[in-house]
């Protein structure tokens, strides 16, 4: 049986990597959805939110088909590996992170960005000096939400990556295994760790979501 510390450490590592991947995608996506009107905007917004309403097993099955040797993403060789965990967790976390990032960017008065441009700063310089700092609390909250979602992901992950102790077992799948095998003590301990991590993350997220300076009236 894999050690508890190892399971928690690996789960935290995978959740952290997932959060980084998702932030790289969610920041430009959230900003574009908040600031621009473009062709296909509604479709893009719907697609990014879709994993939120689909059963995780459905997402897992779809990924399984795509990542299979004969699938469109078969070259990634991600099935039953840590890569599969990152892909499944990223897809499942993306909607929450994009939505929170979008709201954070919408909370930054676009006229402040315009002022920055008139003062000689380019679009990118303005994004770094004005938009990002003013949206930062919301973005940190988004990252925490993404992290907790990745920590707790089960349905899609188990289909794509399996539940291989020492290789692809996460906190969520370890609880499932412990409960299935009747190891109540281990299941309770894992539950306690999951509760603790979840509480701290959501508390931080709520605290960071307080109204910030520079929000639109």
């Amino acid at each position: 049986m894999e050690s508890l510390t190892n399971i928690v450490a690996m789960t935290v590592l995978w959740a952290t990597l997932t959060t980084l991947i998702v932030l790289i995608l969610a920041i430009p996506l959230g900003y574009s959805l908040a600031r621009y009107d473009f062709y296909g905007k509604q479709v893009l917004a719907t697609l990014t939110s879709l994993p939120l309403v689909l059963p995780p097993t459905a997402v897992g099955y779809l990924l399984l088909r795509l990542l299979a040797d004969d699938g469109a993403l078969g070259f990634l060789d991600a099935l039953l590996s840590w890569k599969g965990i990152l892909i499944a967790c990223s897809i499942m976390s993306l909607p929450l992170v994009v939505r929170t990032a979008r709201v954070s960017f919408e909370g930054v008065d676009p006229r402040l960005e315009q002022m920055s441009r008139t003062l000689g700063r380019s679009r990118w310089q303005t994004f770094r000096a004005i938009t990002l700092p003013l949206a930062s609390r919301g973005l940190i909250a988004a990252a925490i939400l993404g992290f907790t979602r990745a920590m707790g992901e089960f349905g899609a992950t188990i289909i794509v990556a399996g539940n291989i102790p020492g290789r692809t077992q996460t906190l969520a799948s370890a609880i499932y295994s412990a409960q299935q095998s009747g190891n109540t003590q281990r299941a309770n301990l894992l539950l306690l760790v999951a509760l603790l991590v979840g509480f701290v993350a959501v508390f931080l997220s709520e605290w960071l979501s307080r109204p910030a300076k520079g929000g639109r009236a």
Partner: protein
Amino acid sequence: MSEQRWQIRLQLQQQQFTLKLDCSSTARVLGIFGPSGSGKTTCLESIAGLRPPAAGYLACGKYIWFDSKQALSLHPEQRGIGYVPQEHLLFPHLSARQNLQYGTQRSQDAAALLQEVIEVLDLSNLDRPIDQLSGGERQRIALGRALCSGPQALLLDEPLASLDATLRLRILPFLIKMRQRFNIPMLVVSHNPLELQALCDDVIALRNGEVIAQGTPITVFTNSDIYGSASAEGFENLLTGNVREHTAHSTSLALAPGQTGPSLTLLRQNSAIGSPLTISIPANDILIATESIHGLSARNRLPATIQQIQTLAGKVILTAAIKGVQATPLVVELTPDAIEELNLTLGSAVDLIIKSSSIAVYS
């Protein structure tokens, strides 16, 4: 004929009308006057590059910012324009100093310019967050931020509109000082004739997106089509002078150089002898006398000559030049009966009677 400095031609569809401007001016400080919704702010935003017009040509001196015929439209950061919006829009996560320094990367001598701006706008305690600044300080930081960016032109959108009456009296002198110290072309948009009289050499009046008059402030504001909206809150005459002397209860303001020229008696001020003061006098607080009157409580009696008499909406608007003063003539509101009874005509010599307490001092 001198070269046109400002060239503003633009066409932009608005919700209620099409903004169509075609004007030019040699003035360094140009004003745009009009009621709310007349397209003033849209015009400024177009010039600043925040709302490109459908067609047109926007330039100031040698700088061409937009030319639809050449498919030229510079980005806002390429225009070198300092824009001061009505709401100030200071960056909330930066201190007052960081706000001032935000645009200094494009100025030639940033440190010296920052020092000059701090001195002219009388700024202090700059390391405070901006939510600890008063309304007047915010306005001055917004002006300073635009100036510190070393702009080729400065756009001011309703610079006093967001301030209460007391703050307006305090901030206007800063704007006047700024105009004098920084030799930058300025475009000032306002619905307040007083601001435009104080700052502008030339004024354009807009209505429903079109130019209806252009000229010196006094010419535009006494235009029969405009006086009604310019005097909605009571027309104010603006004068500047230098403090000549103080007595126990009053201050004498010289309206012309020298010790013997015409002067105004104001309520006692604290300004130093010789220092400049800007004052305003409501047009309906000035009395006209055609003969000598004795035993009068009003402290000011200025000899003047009537230059213009117009009847507008039941009121007679008279402009009179104060003898011995080069400044803009004063506007006086009278009733038609008064004109008839006093037999006032163009060129008549009259005395303007003004109470000291009717004079507002901007300091």
